[in-house]
C-alpha cells in the first residue's frame, strides 16, 4: 500500500468518524433530520463521482436511480401503514381515490419489506444495466451519454406523474410507515436515523473506494483517460462501463431509499431535472475525481443552501448564485475543492516522498486534451 493510499484511507475514515460523532453534540431532532438529509445527498454525489469522475460517464440522469430507489422504499412502507391509511383490501389511499380496485401486480411483492429493500438497489441497477447495454454496446460516448441519460430522466419523471393510478402521480406516495427492522424502529426525527444514514454512507464510501482501488477501478480510470487505448489492450470497454454505471446506480438507489425514510414520503421531484442538476453541481464543486470530495461538496453546498435560504433575501437569489458558482468552478477549477486539497498535499509530500510521487500523481493528471467530439 502506497503512502498516498494510506493517507487517503486515513482521511476517509476520519471524516466518517467525525460524521458519526455529530449526534453526540447535537440533540435537536429537527437539526439532526436536516443533517441526515445532507448526508443522503453526499452519498448520491459520491455515486456520481464513481461514474463521472472515475469512468468519464457524465450521467445527467443520476436522479433517476435515486428516485426509483426512493419509490421502491415508499411502496414497501406504504403497504406497512396501519389500516386507517389504506383503503379496502389493503389498497393505498391514492389508489382508492383513483378507482383502482385491486392491488397492481408489481405492488404485490412490496408487502415484504425485505423485497422492498432489495428492490431499492436492484431495480436501479437493472435499469441502469439495461440502458448502459444499449448505450455502451452501441459505443455511444461523451456528450451523447449525457443527453440520453437526461432524456431518460425526463421520460421516467413524466411516466410517474402520468400513471397517477399506480404511483400517486404529482403528489407522490405520502403517509408512510416508519422503517422497522428486526423489531427496531427508525424514527425520522431521532438520532437512530442519523446513525443509519451515517453507517450507510461509510459502507458505501469504502465500497466505492475499494472499487476504485481494484484492478477494475484502474481500468475504469484508463477508460476515462483514453478509451481507445484500453480497447486496443483487449478489454471489453462496454462491460466495464456498464459495471461502473450500474454500481453508481445501485448506490444512488440506496441513497433514494434513505431519503424516503428521512423525508417520510416519495415525490416525483426526487426524479426531477433540478435535483439531477444539483448532484452534478455538488460533484463539480467538491471535485468530481474524488469520492470524498464529491461527498463533502454535496454536504457543504446543501448545508449552505439550507442556511442561506432561511433568510428571505437569499431564498430568491440562491439559485442565481449557485448557477454563478457552478459556471465559475467549471471554468476556473475543473477539479473542484478536492483538486485544490490534492495540490496542497502534493506540495507537502514532495519534500520526502520523491520516489512514489511522480508515479501516483501521474494517475491524477488531468486527461490529456481529448479530441473534440464531433
Amino acid at each position, binding site marked *: 500500500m502506497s503512502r498516498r493510499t494510506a493517507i487517503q484511507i486515513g482521511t476517509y475514515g476520519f471524516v466518517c468518524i467525525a460524521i458519526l460523532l455529530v449526534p453526540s453534540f447535537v440533540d435537536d431532532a429537527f437539526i439532526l433530520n436536516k443533517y441526515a438529509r445532507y448526508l443522503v445527498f453526499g452519498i448520491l454525489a459520491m455515486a456520481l463521482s464513481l461514474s463521472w469522475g472515475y469512468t468519464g460517464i457524465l450521467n445527467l440522469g443520476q436522479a433517476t436511480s435515486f428516485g426509483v430507489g426512493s419509490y421502491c422504499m415508499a411502496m414497501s412502507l406504504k403497504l406497512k401503514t396501519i389500516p386507517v391509511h389504506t383503503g379496502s383490501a389493503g389498497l393505498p389511499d391514492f389508489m382508492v381515490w383513483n378507482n383502482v380496485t385491486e392491488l397492481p401486480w408489481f405492488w404485490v411483492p412490496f408487502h415484504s419489506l425485505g423485497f422492498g429493500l432489495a428492490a431499492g438497489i436492484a431495480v436501479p441497477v437493472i435499469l441502469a444495466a439495461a*440502458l448502459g447495454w444499449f448505450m455502451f454496446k452501441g*459505443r455511444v460516448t461523451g456528450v451523447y451519454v449525457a443527453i440520453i441519460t437526461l432524456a431518460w430522466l425526463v421520460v421516467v419523471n413524466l411516466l410517474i406523474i402520468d400513471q397517477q393510478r399506480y404511483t400517486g402521480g404529482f403528489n407522490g406516495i405520502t403517509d408512510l410507515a416508519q422503517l422497522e427492522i428486526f423489531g427496531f424502529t427508525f424514527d425520522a426525527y431521532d438520532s437512530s436515523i442519523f446513525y443509519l444514514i451515517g453507517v450507510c454512507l461509510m459502507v458505501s464510501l469504502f465500497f466505492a473506494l475499494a472499487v476504485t482501488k481494484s484492478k477494475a477501478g484502474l481500468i475504469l480510470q484508463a477508460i476515462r483517460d483514453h478509451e481507445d487505448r484500453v480497447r486496443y489492450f483487449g478489454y471489453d470497454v462496454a462491460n466495464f462501463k456498464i459495471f461502473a454505471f450500474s454500481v453508481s446506480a445501485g448506490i444512488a438507489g440506496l441513497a433514494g431509499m434513505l431519503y424516503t425514510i428521512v423525508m417520510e414520503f416519495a415525490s416525483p421531484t426526487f426524479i426531477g431535472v433540478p435535483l439531477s442538476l444539483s448532484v452534478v453541481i455538488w460533484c463539480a464543486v467538491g471535485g468530481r475525481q474524488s469520492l470524498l470530495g464529491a461527498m463533502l461538496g454535496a454536504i457543504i453546498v446543501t448545508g449552505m443552501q439550507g442556511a442561506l435560504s432561511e433568510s428571505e433575501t437569499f431564498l430568491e437569489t440562491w439559485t*442565481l448564485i449557485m*448557477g454563478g458558482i457552478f*459556471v465559475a468552478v*467549471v471554468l476556473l477549477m475543473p477539479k473542484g475543492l478536492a483538486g485544490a486539497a490534492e495540490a496542497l498535499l502534493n506540495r507537502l509530500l514532495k519534500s520526502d516522498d520523491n520516489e512514489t510521487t511522480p508515479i501516483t500523481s501521474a494517475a491524477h493528471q488531468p486527461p490529456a486534451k481529448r479530441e*473534440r*467530439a464531433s
Partner: protein
Amino acid sequence: MPPTARISKKAACRMAEAIITQIITGLSISSILLLVALGLAIIYGTTGVINLAHGEFVMLGAYTAWALQTFIGIGLIESLVLIFMCVALFGWIIERIVIRHLYDRPLDTILATWGVGIMAQQAIRLIAGGELRYVEMPSSLGSSISLFGIETSAFRIFVLVLAVALFGVTWYLMYRTSFGMKLRAITQNREVASAFGINSNRIYSLTFAYGAGLAGLAGALVSPLKSVSPEMGTTYVVDAFMVVVLGGVESLVGTIASSAILGEVTGFLAFYTDDTIAKATVFFAIVILIRFRPQGLFSTKDRS
C-alpha cells in the same frame, strides 16, 4: 348503390380526413422541433459545444416577444427580427464570456451551459415573475384556412412555412456564402483553417449567436401556442437533442428529416394514447435504435 356501401364510403372519407388532420398536427410539431434543433445542430456540428442553455434561449425568445407586446405594443410578426437580434446578442455575449474558454473540454461545455441556463431561468423568474404569461396571436393569422378540405390554424401553417424558409436560409448560409465556407473549413480542421487566415474565434461566436437567434425565434413562434414560463425551455431542449441524436450532426438534411419523423410519430402516437406515452415510446425507440445504428439515421460518422 346499396346504403351500406355509401356509409362505408363516408366512413373512409372521415378516416382520410382524420389522417390528414393528424399529418398536419404532426407537421406543426415537426416545424417547432426543426426550429429548435436547427440552432442546436449548427452549434454542436461546428463548435462541438453541447448547448444545454438552448432551451433557455427559446424561453428568452418567448419572453422577449411577451415583453415587446405587453410593454411596447409591437405585434409578434413585426418583432420577429428584433427578437432574433436580442437573443443572438445574448448568445454572442455568453460565447465571449464563458464558452470560448471551453472549446478543448467538450464535456465541460455541458456543465457551463447548464449553469448559464439556470442563471437565465432564475433571472427571468426574478424579473418577470414565475407565473404563466400569454402572448397574443397575430390577428391577421388568427383565422383558420382550408387545406385539403381540412380547417387548419393559419398561424400553424405560418410557423411551418417560416421554419422551412429558415432552414433554406441556413442551408444557403452554410453552402453558398464565404462565411459558410469558412465555417465548414473550421469544422473539418480548425488548425489548418486558422493557418489559412480564417479567424476561427470570430466564426465561432457568430455561429453561436446565429444558433441562439434561431432558438429565440422558435421561442417567439411557440409563445402564442403554449403558455410562457421560465421552465418552458427544458422540454424543448430535450426534444431537440433527440432530433440531433436521431438525425446525426453532420447533415442539415438529417436534422430536417428527423424533425419530420419525430414530429409525425409523436403526433400519431399521442392521438392514439397520450402525450406522455408517446414521448416515452419515442425515447425508447431511439435508445434501441442507437444500439444498432449509433451514428444516427442520416450520418456516416461515429459518435466519439
